């Protein structure tokens, strides 16, 4: 989707303002937000791609003014409601009102270290060879789906070069919407800034994205 998250090349968003000796958390609730988000992810009820889509689907003024932990919390509420674990009435009252769905797994303290250490690899074998080779010139596709995609708007319909074939991975555009993992080959594609940004681009700059095979076409 062309949502508020697709920020590459946008102007007017203010200074970066890095904070000296920044702490990991700026408030206690941020710690809880991290832990709750990871705990609920362990239910196995939704994919990382679905949760990314829930975040980018927040109203743009909220997405663009919220801290990332707030984005997480708001999107998590959406996911928990969508999948039947909680209701809005429960959030409003701050207490359980009904039983709700049972998850496959509840993350207990003794499991936490193991789950974090394991992570969630998303490389998957595919039974066809890569369509593109290192060094090949390709064009990214032009499309503007309302659904989830990982091809940023600035990198659509642009000509670049395949720099690496990175393996085959779950395809987020499908997986975010419950259409299966449908793995594809993934390529690092590098663009000259002039191709991406046109007149006035930094001549010393190249930008790469990691692009699934179906994002690319032969030139």
């Amino acid at each position, binding site marked *: 989707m062309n949502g508020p*998250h697709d*920020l*590459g*090349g*946008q102007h007017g*968003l*203010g*200074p*970066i*303002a*890095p904070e000296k000796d*920044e702490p*990991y*958390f*700026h408030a*206690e*609730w941020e710690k809880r*937000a991290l*832990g*709750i988000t990871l*705990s609920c992810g362990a239910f196995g009820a939704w994919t990382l791609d679905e949760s*990314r889509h829930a975040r980018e689907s927040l109203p743009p003024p909220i997405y663009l*003014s919220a*801290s*990332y*932990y707030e984005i997480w919390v708001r999107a998590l*509420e959406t996911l928990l409601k969508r999948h039947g*674990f909680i209701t809005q009435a429960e959030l*409003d009252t*701050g*207490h*359980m009102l009904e*039983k709700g769905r049972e998850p496959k797994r*509840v993350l207990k*303290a003794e499991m936490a*270290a193991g789950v*974090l*250490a*394991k*992570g*969630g*690899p*998303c*490389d998957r074998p595919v039974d066809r060879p890569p369509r593109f080779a290192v060094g090949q010139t390709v064009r990214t596709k032009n499309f503007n789906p309302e659904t989830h995609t*990982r*091809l940023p708007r600035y990198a659509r319909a642009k000509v670049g070069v395949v720099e690496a074939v990175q393996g085959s*991975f779950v395809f987020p555009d499908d997986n975010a919407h419950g259409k299966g993992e449908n793995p594809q080959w*993934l390529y690092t594609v*590098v663009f000259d800034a002039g191709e*991406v*940004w046109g007149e006035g681009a*930094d001549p*010393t*700059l*190249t*930008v*790469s*994205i*990691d*692009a699934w095979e179906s994002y690319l076409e032969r030139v």
Partner: protein
Amino acid sequence: MSEHHHGDGHGHHHDNHFTDMEARVKALETVLTEKGLIDPEAIDAIVETYETKVGPRNGARVVAKAWSDPEFADWLKRDATAAIASLGFAGRQGEHMRAVFNTPDTHNLVVCTLCSCYPWAVLGLPPVWYKAPPYRSRAVIDPRGVLAEFGLELSAEKKIRVWDSTAELRYLVVPERPEGTEGFSEDALAELVTRDSMIGTGLALSREAAR
């Protein structure tokens, strides 16, 4: 209402908002706990992991070893996930690692324009600015302007390569080894490796700066 920038998520003008979020998260945690869906102690364990165990010191060990050991550097270049795992660093947001090496010609910079992808396993939790709109919007179009905000001025001829983390690969920048560090131990070298130098918004510390 202030025209102050709104994308950072911290600072005094957010105090009221932080209070709202405190209540919102408290309600969420209470509901989930009453339902038995979360274990508050698991949350404590997760927080403790990222406050004390998984942070940029992990990445600094990787870089220091790559500086010290050409075979490890070569392995890191070819298969970063395995090379990094050999040092005991793996897991969430580090499942598929790539290491990119700064050279005299080229400076690397990592961003996630679409969300907040970051190599947790080697750098820990990302700083606020990494996840906020200003950095995400500008890194791919105006990296020199971005670096200037971090106090880093590259020569006009230096090539800049920006890596936009659009997939599940997580990038670790291996900064150039500072001059005059021959014979430094890995421990001493690791002290020179800042978090920002592994994102690309900084360089490794000089041997003088580190003292």
